[in-house]
């Protein structure tokens, strides 16, 4: 099971969504798909059509910058970061 950590900006948009959860996922895209299945519309908050990760959203797998097709290990840690922007 991968440990997934989400940015604080996401839970207010999706009732019941925790900041941290465990998912049995094989890739980053699989994480997104499983999140979207439980909280419809969540994919659109992290990805653009294409699909591609939104420019100001970063995924890290085990502390390495990741893409949607990045594979996950059994105990990978996935951090979803809202990049520094705005003001």
């Amino acid at each position: 099971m991968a440990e997934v950590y989400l940015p604080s900006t996401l839970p207010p948009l999706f009732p019941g969504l925790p900041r941290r959860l465990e998912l049995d996922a094989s890739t980053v895209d699989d994480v997104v798909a499983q999140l979207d299945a439980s909280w419809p519309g969540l994919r659109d908050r992290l990805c653009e059509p294409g699909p591609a990760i939104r420019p100001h959203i970063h995924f890290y797998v085990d502390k390495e910058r990741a893409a949607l097709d990045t594979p996950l290990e059994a105990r990978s840690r996935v951090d979803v970061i809202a990049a520094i922007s705005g003001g």
Partner: protein
Amino acid sequence: MVRTVVLVGTRKGCFLLESDEARREWELRGPFCEGWPVYHAVHDAGTGSIYAAAASEWHGSAVWRSPDLGQTWEHSSEGLAYESEGEKKMSKVSNLAVKNGRLLAGVEMPGIFESKDGGQSFSLLTTLAGQPGSEGWDDPANQPPGHLGISAIMFDPEQDERFWAIVQGVGLFETQDDAKSWTPRNKGLRADWPREHEDVGFCVHKLTRSSVDGDRMYQQNHVGMHRSDDCGHTWTEITEGLPTEFGFAAATHPHDRETFYVIPLDPGHGRTMPDGHASVWRTRDAGESWQRLDKGLPTEDAWVGVLREGMAIDTHEAPGLYFGTSTGQVFASADEGDSWSEIASYLPAISSVEVAIVD
């Protein structure tokens, strides 16, 4: 009890200001929409719902909706994207129009999406493909920094398939068959720059239409105020008497076809009120003459701007006017602009102001 509700879209969420018919005391609620930048918030008189066009730098664009005047909110962007149009991307929902439950969203790059289920899902209605100028606005190289989009949509209250759309920096277009075909409506407008097409190439900032005479329209243009007496088929400039030819916000009197309001701004980089003197200007003779309205407004050192959706007028017997500034103040008048008071002082930068009368 009749409620007067002012919807304020800001850089950090949507706010609601509420009063009664007298409009003397105001209560502020918000911020809503999780502090997302809100570009335009509107009220659907048919269903009572509020919709807010928003774009988060992190989480993209969406339309927020509240069925209960701000008590609860949800958001959706389902279908609100160019899925199969090559490099054409939607960067922002910039403008909303709503009529009897049908919601239209004008977006950048230029296109109009519609929702028939109360903002839960959207589908692409039109990109105005093939219209003169579309080869330019559909060029990804123009996005950004051009940020060309559909900056306004205006329904016809009588004919469901008729509405107008402004393509930013290009001009005004009308459809009478629900966006199947379009006609440019820019005859008589001024442009102080070279244009590639006869019918377009005009910078229409704001379009308003008289609710007592559908043939009477006004528009604030990049270069001048204009009036139409034939529903936009031809335009006549009515700038003379105003301090500048430039501005964004405008409003028509709900009961008098001759009365119209505008907020002129300096046309340079500042785009604030001329001489730091906050004023709304009113004509009562369709643009033959103009009157400065500043009683109660800051007349010195007020370097404030007002954007294209930044002014609204209500439909009370003595109409109330409202405008929101780039520095977060909302000013209101309950006497057709004769006198003003500040009803919110410390909001984030304001993008839009709309008003609804709710029973």
